[in-house]
């Protein structure tokens, strides 16, 4: 795996951590992304300036992994690049990792990115009556709504 570095596409891309998930928003387009726990950790490492190889190394240490997760991480980073949430950079800024607290019960799984594109729908969606049991922004299926 060739080592590559990245930077967040701020200021148009912002991030917030809600417990163990990360929420990313592209402010210009209003697109809302939700990253699962592992995705949130990867994002946090990218924010700290970690390269792709450093991310793989760090996750393998954190979860004591024996299997190779390079492909998972590469695909996930490619997705973030494709969505223009991050961009490749030549600058290697990482000096040391801030410690990341994780739930003891958390196990490794391939990081995922959920995308919600309809800004109007997101803004207008009733966060109590029109959502499923996971809450906004997950829309209740039409069948469940009946």
């Amino acid at each position, binding site marked *: 795996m060739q080592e590559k570095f990245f930077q967040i596409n701020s200021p148009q891309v912002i991030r917030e951590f*809600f417990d163990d998930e990360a*929420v990313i928003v592209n402010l210009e387009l209003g697109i809302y992304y939700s990253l699962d726990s592992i995705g949130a950790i990867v994002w946090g490492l990218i924010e700290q300036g970690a390269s792709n190889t450093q991310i793989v190394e760090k996750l393998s240490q954190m979860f004591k992994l024996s299997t190779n997760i390079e492909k998972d991480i590469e695909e996930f980073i490619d997705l973030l690049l494709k969505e223009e949430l991050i961009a490749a950079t030549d600058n290697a800024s990482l000096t040391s990792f801030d410690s990341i607290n994780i739930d003891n019960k958390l196990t490794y799984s391939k990081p995922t990115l959920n995308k919600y594109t309809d800004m109007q729908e997101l803004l207008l969606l009733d*966060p*109590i009556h029109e959502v499923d049991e*996971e*809450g906004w*922004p997950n829309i209740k299926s039409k069948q469940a709504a009946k």
Partner: protein
Amino acid sequence: MSLMSSENLSNAGCWPSQTQELLLKAILTCNVEESINFWQEWQKLVNVQQLDYGSQRLLPMLYNKLKTTDITHPDLKIYKGVYRQAWYKSQMMLHKALPVLQTFQENNIKAIILKGLALAVLYYKDYGLRPMSDFDILVPIEQKNSAIKMMLSLGWEEGFSWSHSQCFTKQEQKCDLHWHLMSDICSLKPNETNEVNKEFWKAIVPLQIKEISAYSLCPTDMIFHICVHGAWWNPVAPLRWIVDVMMILREPVVIDWSRLVNQTYKLQLGLIIRNAFNYLKNYFAAPIPDEVLKKLDDYKPSYSEQLDYLTKTSPTNERNPLAAFWVCYREYRQYTIGNNVKPNFLGFVKFLRDRWGIEKLSEIPLHSIKEIWQRL
């Protein structure tokens, strides 16, 4: 029975109902166990699917409180969803607000951020905890016209104009541009208006929003402003103002109570401030000094203030038609003073048209009759 007794407040449009008070206590009580107990009591009485909008707006704060406990309940995911949406909406709103603030900054227009946005930055410290549907900016009255021109140049469209502010919209985002802090200032004589405005501006504090340097009202004036705007009848139960004030009082800030009482007397807002403060003290143990409450107890409201207060704390469809008309006329007089225009009959009729959202002036007589008939 006092205006403020819990039994009398079940018309959850001016003061919280007993059920809503449980929610407020769950949020505001510092003791975790008590907070959970209040939440559980509230849970027994409500169905989250039928929650009133006023309570719904407090769900992010409720989630923030409960997430640190061992509570697991399916409704927590709903509360979290409301919190996420509030955060998202605030971010999208901020994205529209920052260019306005930046333009003002670059053109030396001092801007005070009012209400929700200032509270979110300074006291809630989390954009998701304090849902807001618009942002409010106060500029010096002498810069009002320049500020309006800048808003228009940034693509904002003018909406309704009050005595003290102008609404703007852009791609469904709303902004209220103020040149007086509140409409009540426009009831004063011109030299008194200037004096009151200067007092507010003298005490402002810096407020940083991302790269923008703006201002906020000082904590004392913010409490005053919140109570004056909060404790009226509203179709959406006005619960937020209670949490807003308590969030300020819990910060290590200095409140100039003498100043607040003086402003209350000057602006003849003693009834609303007295009742708001007594409510906060009695129901939420707000740290309001007894001597302040005593000074407010000594306040003697004028007849017009009493009429105004009784009208505005009643549901709109229960207001005495003459009293409701009086409130409209008073708002019109404030509008003429605030916008420096001469009052006249046609101006008043046009004001009613805009206030009632009617298209044609000719519809006003019929609409007036309808309003009166509904109240009889």
